[in-house]
């Protein structure tokens, strides 16, 4: 008998605009003990509704129209709030996205753990204190006894998510559900959290559901996969079967989109470094420090790079690495503390955005992460695209209107969309509009700040395609800032890996993805999951999280987390130097040893054997 059986579940919701919407249609599936079922679907596919229905926490406008849910053979009274309460957070629990927002900001995390145990009688009273400490230890929080007294704001995002997991585990649930448990976390932290999740499921023998829109997570962490589209099950299979050959058309599309991202598809050729184009932008020793009332934040600590005309440089790294600050400096939104940003022979570091719009050749523009946030909610899409034309061109109203139509066509949107308001459209359309606005005044350089990170896989691929097409048509140069490696792989000619405000590895994109010679570069790129259960994953994991940029570690910025650390690493900062025999720059004292050993992993393995 399976742990959880769902039979023909159909849920409906009243929408003020659309009347009755069916959110899940005839869902039938089961989860066994010690098994991880992966549910994949894009946003709006019904994943969240499904998990919340199993837990019996429906919104007032939602209801179960048909079907039943059995837990250990017993019918779950999901519509009866009182009857569900003893099960919620005890035998069935849910880990949700959003880390810190899931914790009560004014209560110590130890008290929150005690609350969860206190609302059910599964853990004897006298054992709860010890159990709370044990829980924090089991989710990998260092110094748990001390951390019990911490408030949520004292923890980082990754640590907060571990606490959220600890809360879900507090009463030893038999069914553990997770809804995008790593949303908003860096890749290195994502794999830490997912490793932990799988470990816990295996250790406790609980049944488990992992709902995500990331096919790669399912490939690596689940036993079975269930593909959901618009509330309906499209395909159900074991992970091995599915990735070997999906039976449904939609499943094939999903894998193809994901594989294209990995660059295995011959239709998406690797982007080679361009030949002898002249440089467009040169950054030399860029430094940006923010002064706050008490501290100085060392956001960017002396980085240099060049972007040629028509070329894409990807700037990648964890959040807190300073990549967005570099983008803001280039866009003229903030001015650098020191260093030069030279575009076509002019230092633009101190030229404001307003002045740049008076000099067509110095124009830069930005595409942001959250498309809806980047558009004025009260303006039609057309008006938003028109705005830069007012400041950066001499077109009259008629000319501007014409150009708006042209721009909409260029980004593949019918001009009728110009009259719509942002909230009436999807994220994909909004992002196209943001791109149209960015290219409106013919800038030579676009700064793309995580333009794909908030989008579903299929939309992401469309936006990347659009950006590549526009680059080829218009000869644009891109600074592509992202932690979304699949998008980087598709679009970048060159890649620079940042850590704590410095570049640690820099080279042609295809080659860097192929092989990394810097310990951080290796750790970061091997944390990136690809939708392939047989992906060869390094055992190399970075410990802990990126340190604060307020007090930089002396010496190499990576020294506090590096698995290959030596005493000299904490004394001096290694320069970004050419790697012998390769078209590559790396900042590491041990480059020669790494090359001699045949790679970072190999050197790491050799040292562990020796020790």
């Amino acid at each position, binding site marked *: 008998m399976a742990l959880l059986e769902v039979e023909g579940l159909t849920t409906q919701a009243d929408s003020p605009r659309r009347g009755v*919407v069916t959110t899940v249609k005839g869902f039938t599936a089961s989860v066994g003990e010690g098994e991880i079922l992966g549910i994949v679907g894009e946003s709006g596919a019904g994943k969240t509704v499904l998990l919340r229905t199993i837990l019996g926490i429906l919104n007032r406008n939602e209801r179960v129209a048909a079907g039943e849910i059995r837990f250990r053979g017993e019918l779950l009274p999901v519509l009866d709030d009182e009857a569900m309460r003893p099960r919620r957070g005890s035998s069935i629990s849910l880990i949700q996205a959003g880390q810190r927002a899931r914790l009560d900001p004014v209560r110590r995390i130890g008290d929150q753990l005690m609350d969860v145990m206190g609302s059910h009688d599964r853990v004897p009273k006298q054992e709860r204190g010890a159990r709370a400490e044990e829980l924090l230890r089991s989710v990998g929080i260092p110094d748990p006894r001390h951390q019990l007294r911490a408030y949520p704001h004292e923890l980082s995002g990754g640590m907060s998510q571990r606490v959220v997991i600890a809360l879900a585990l507090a009463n030893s649930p038999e069914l553990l559900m997770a809804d995008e448990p790593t949303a908003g976390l860096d890749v290195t932290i994502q794999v830490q959290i997912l490793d932990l999740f799988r470990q816990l499921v295996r250790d406790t023998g609980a049944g488990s559901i992992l709902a995500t829109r990331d096919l790669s997570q399912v490939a690596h962490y689940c036993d079975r996969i269930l593909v959901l589209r618009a509330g309906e099950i499209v395909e159900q299979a074991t992970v091995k079967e599915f990735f070997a050959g999906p039976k449904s058309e939609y499943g094939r599309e999903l894998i193809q989109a994901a594989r294209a991202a990995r660059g295995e598809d011959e239709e998406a050729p690797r982007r080679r470094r361009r030949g002898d184009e002249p440089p467009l932008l040169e950054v030399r020793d860029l430094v940006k420090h923010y002064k706050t009332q008490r501290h100085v934040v060392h956001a960017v600590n002396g980085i240099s790079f060049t972007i040629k005309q028509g070329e894409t440089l990807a700037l990648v790294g964890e959040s807190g690495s300073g990549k967005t600050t570099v983008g803001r400096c280039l866009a003229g939104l903030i001015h650098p503390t020191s260093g030069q940003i030279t575009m076509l022979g002019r230092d633009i570091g101190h030229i404001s955005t307003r002045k740049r*719009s008076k000099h067509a050749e110095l124009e830069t523009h930005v595409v942001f992460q959250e498309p809806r946030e980047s558009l004025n909610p009260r303006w039609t899409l057309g008006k938003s695209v028109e*705005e830069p034309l*007012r400041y950066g061109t001499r077109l009259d109203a008629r000319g501007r209107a014409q150009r708006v139509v042209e721009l909409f066509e260029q980004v593949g949107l019918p001009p009728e969309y110009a009259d719509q308001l942002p*909230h009436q459209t999807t994220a994909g359309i909004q992002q196209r509009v943001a791109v149209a606005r960015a290219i409106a005044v013919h800038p030579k350089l676009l700064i793309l700040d995580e333009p794909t990170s908030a989008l579903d896989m299929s939309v992401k691929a469309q936006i990347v395609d659009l950006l590549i097409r526009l680059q080829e048509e218009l000869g644009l140069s891109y600074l592509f800032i992202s932690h979304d490696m699949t998008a980087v792989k598709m679009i970048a000619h060159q890649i620079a890996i940042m850590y704590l405000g410095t570049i640690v590895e820099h080279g042609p994109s295809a080659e860097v993805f192929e092989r990394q010679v810097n310990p951080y570069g290796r750790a970061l790129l091997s944390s990136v999951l690809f939708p392939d259960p047989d992906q060869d994953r390094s055992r190399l994991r970075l410990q802990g999280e990126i340190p604060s940029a307020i007090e930089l570690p002396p010496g190499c910025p990576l020294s506090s987390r590096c698995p290959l650390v030596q005493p000299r690493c904490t004394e001096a900062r290694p320069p970004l130097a050419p790697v012998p025999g390769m078209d590559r720059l790396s900042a590491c004292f041990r480059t020669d040893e790494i090359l001699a050993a045949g790679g970072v992993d190999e050197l790491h393995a050799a040292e562990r054997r020796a020790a």
Partner: protein
Amino acid sequence: MSIEPETRALEEETGHLDSAAGPPLTAAVQRGELNGVGGFVRSNRALAIGLAIVAISIFLMAFGPLIGTHSPTSEDFTATLTGPSGEHWFGTDQNGRDIFSRVLAAPRVDLYIALVSTAFAMAIGVPLGVLATGTSRLGELTGEWLLRAMDVIQAFPVFILALALVAGFGASAFNVIIALTVLQFPVFLRLTRGAALGIRGRTFVEAARIGGAGTGGVMFRHVLPNSVGPALVGASVAVAQAILITAGLSFVGAGIRPPTPEWGAMISDGAQNLITGQWWPSVFPGLALGIVVLGYALVGDGLRLYLDPSRRR
């Protein structure tokens, strides 16, 4: 735990369906939104009552003096302080004026003063509230000074300040309006500043700067229109407050003088007769005042609820 994210997910879902159908739906969507407002009013009885009271009060402001049973100012010394009767529904005051007609006529003064002063206060407070969020060093300094000035104004007890202003400049409708404007605009400044600070940090404002918009363009084309929500909600509360202060000033003899029909002055006039048992000259205008203030307060509450996204639970 908050339920909001899930609600948002549902919205995205429905939003997705909308746009899948393409642009021709725009009009329908707009109609749908109108239905949304209507539906909201229907489902919120307090707001409906408030709106009805507001509508009646505005009607009275326009036509009140014309629809009474008697002239609101004509005196009849043969019938002073008569109780409610078929001839004088609310009775008469000590000068023999018909209280019913005077209660209906008073909004022309009370409400007019309240609406005009609130409009002035908004016209000054909202733009200053946006300016007070200035990002440049000069803007920050201006903002600081503005806020300190508001502290000074708001540190005075509201009524005492109004009294001082009217006493200083003389009691007339115009001076009451000026006094109320000075009193109320700091409220709008603060409300707008609070909203504008949030809007200013949004990405679309940054995008406008990158597009070449200057400070003025950013402030007045982007930040201001997106920050007036709280001030609009505050306006109905401000109207209620202004009516109370106007009446209060008249009550102590510093505002509108008899025989002009005005609730506060009527209450004050009638108060001396309360001891001798003639309750009607002050109770009826007092009730009218209470109901209208309640109406505006209910509308303010309803608006706040309507603009608050978490209401959709």
